[in-house]
């Protein structure tokens, strides 16, 4: 991927800012998401909550199913491939997906290496729990970052932890003197020029979204107030009582994330939220996949 393409790919993520990206499994759900104000949809066969329930190996979705969603909506369509599975990524590029999520939600195909994303023209988003993970993914060619959170739980605690950790590390680097940056690059196992960028700009060089466990308008606004530039909602919408209403409410809460009065109104009568599970109750910890 040349520099221009990388800029265009980072640019698409910039266009998604302030928006909500929703997991969908059928063209019907994709249409509901688009009508509710999703800025993009993530096409996948099973949402994370069901992946957890089903167990076994979880892979890239059927391209036919992804194509049916591409045909159903006019907004960008993303899809997931397994960590390190560059052939799944090649397939997604071949069907002209708008963004690939190299995702810990699926079973990793490689327990050491991530995909060399610089070899692709299509953009990638990757999960990160801290600044080191984020900058390593960016160095591999990711043009967008999201927190990992703990997908499919409806529990926002890990997303909060990851966002707070990343931002506190960024603040720390901003306050460092220039000669301390070399050691910091070594500690975080990332290239010096990326640390230097963070030091000078006080932010990641790409857009940073929140993901994993967002289930309510308040969760979404919480992540925005903590510094997320937008929000992924996975299981939270289509595992709830009234998906269309909840989706629209989350979209508005992300736009007006500081307006408590409005979020109070948006939170009324949303029906049942996804039940959710606590971290202590789950067997598979997805956030630990891919470091």
């Amino acid at each position, binding site marked *: 991927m040349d520099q221009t393409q990388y*800029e265009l790919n980072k640019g698409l993520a910039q266009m998604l800012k302030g928006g909500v990206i929703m997991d969908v499994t059928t063209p019907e759900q994709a249409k509901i998401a688009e009508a509710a104000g999703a800025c993009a949809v993530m096409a996948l066969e099973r949402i994370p909550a069901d992946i957890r329930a089903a167990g076994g190996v979880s892979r890239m979705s059927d391209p036919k199913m992804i194509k049916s969603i591409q045909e159903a909506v006019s907004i960008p369509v993303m899809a997931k491939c397994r960590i390190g599975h560059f052939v799944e990524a090649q397939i997604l590029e071949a069907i002209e997906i708008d963004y690939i999520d190299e995702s810990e939600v699926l079973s990793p195909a490689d327990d050491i290496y991530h995909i060399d994303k610089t070899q692709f023209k299509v953009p990638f988003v990757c999960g990160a729990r801290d600044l080191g993970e984020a900058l390593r993914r960016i160095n591999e060619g990711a043009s967008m970052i999201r927190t990992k959170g703990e997908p499919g739980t409806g529990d926002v605690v890990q997303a909060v932890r990851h966002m707070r950790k990343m931002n506190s590390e960024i603040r720390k680097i901003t306050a460092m003197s220039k000669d301390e940056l070399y050691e910091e690059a070594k500690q975080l196992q990332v290239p010096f020029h990326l640390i230097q960028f963070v030091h000078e700009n006080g932010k990641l060089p790409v857009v940073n979204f929140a993901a994993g466990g967002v289930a309510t308008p308040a969760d979404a606004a919480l992540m925005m107030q903590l510094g997320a530039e937008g929000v992924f909602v996975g299981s939270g919408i289509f595992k709830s009582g009234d998906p269309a209403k909840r989706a629209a409410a989350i979209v508005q809460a992300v736009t007006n994330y500081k307006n408590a009065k409005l979020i109070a109104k948006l939170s009324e009568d949303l029906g049942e939220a996804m039940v959710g599970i606590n971290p202590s109750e789950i067997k598979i910890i997805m956030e630990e996949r891919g470091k």
Partner: protein
Amino acid sequence: MRIGVLAVQGAFIEHEQQLASIANRFDEQIECIEIRQKTDLEDLDGIILPGGESTVQGKLLKNLELIDTLQAMILRGIPTLATCAGLILLAKTLENDSTKHLATLPVTVQRNAYGRQLGSFSVSSNVGEIESFPLIFIRAPYITEVSADTRILTVVDQHIVGVEYKNQIGLAFHPEMTNDTRIHEYFLQKVKDLANM
């Protein structure tokens, strides 16, 4: 000068940064107001509609009850700069789509005219009197029809990608994503000229 930047979704901060970077070239102070609710529309001298997803922005304009006031302001002549999704919001008609948003600019726009992200590109071209401006197209639209009194600013590969109609500038590309500030300066000059009339 008070410039309102629609901040319901998309790349609005990039426009604010662009304005901040040229503020010292104008002798009056430039204040950016992020438009999220009706009260943000008071006392503005100019409006910027940024890139993003037009379906989302259009829906939020309605849900947050901004659309009627904004439309009236544009029709009354407030200088407006719209990029990418913003152009779609302004367009009177959309190709193969009955959706209407602000519908104040007498042109027809084709959404996602260059296809998916793999069709995104950048190129250099003249924009009106501004020579060789870097044009960045991201899942961009283009304009298929213009009214006789609309001025065409930019054509790329035989497609119209920039127009000016009275107070409205509609661009299919993203000047806010470049280091080139000439289009924003042109827009601010327009705002200033109107204020001094």
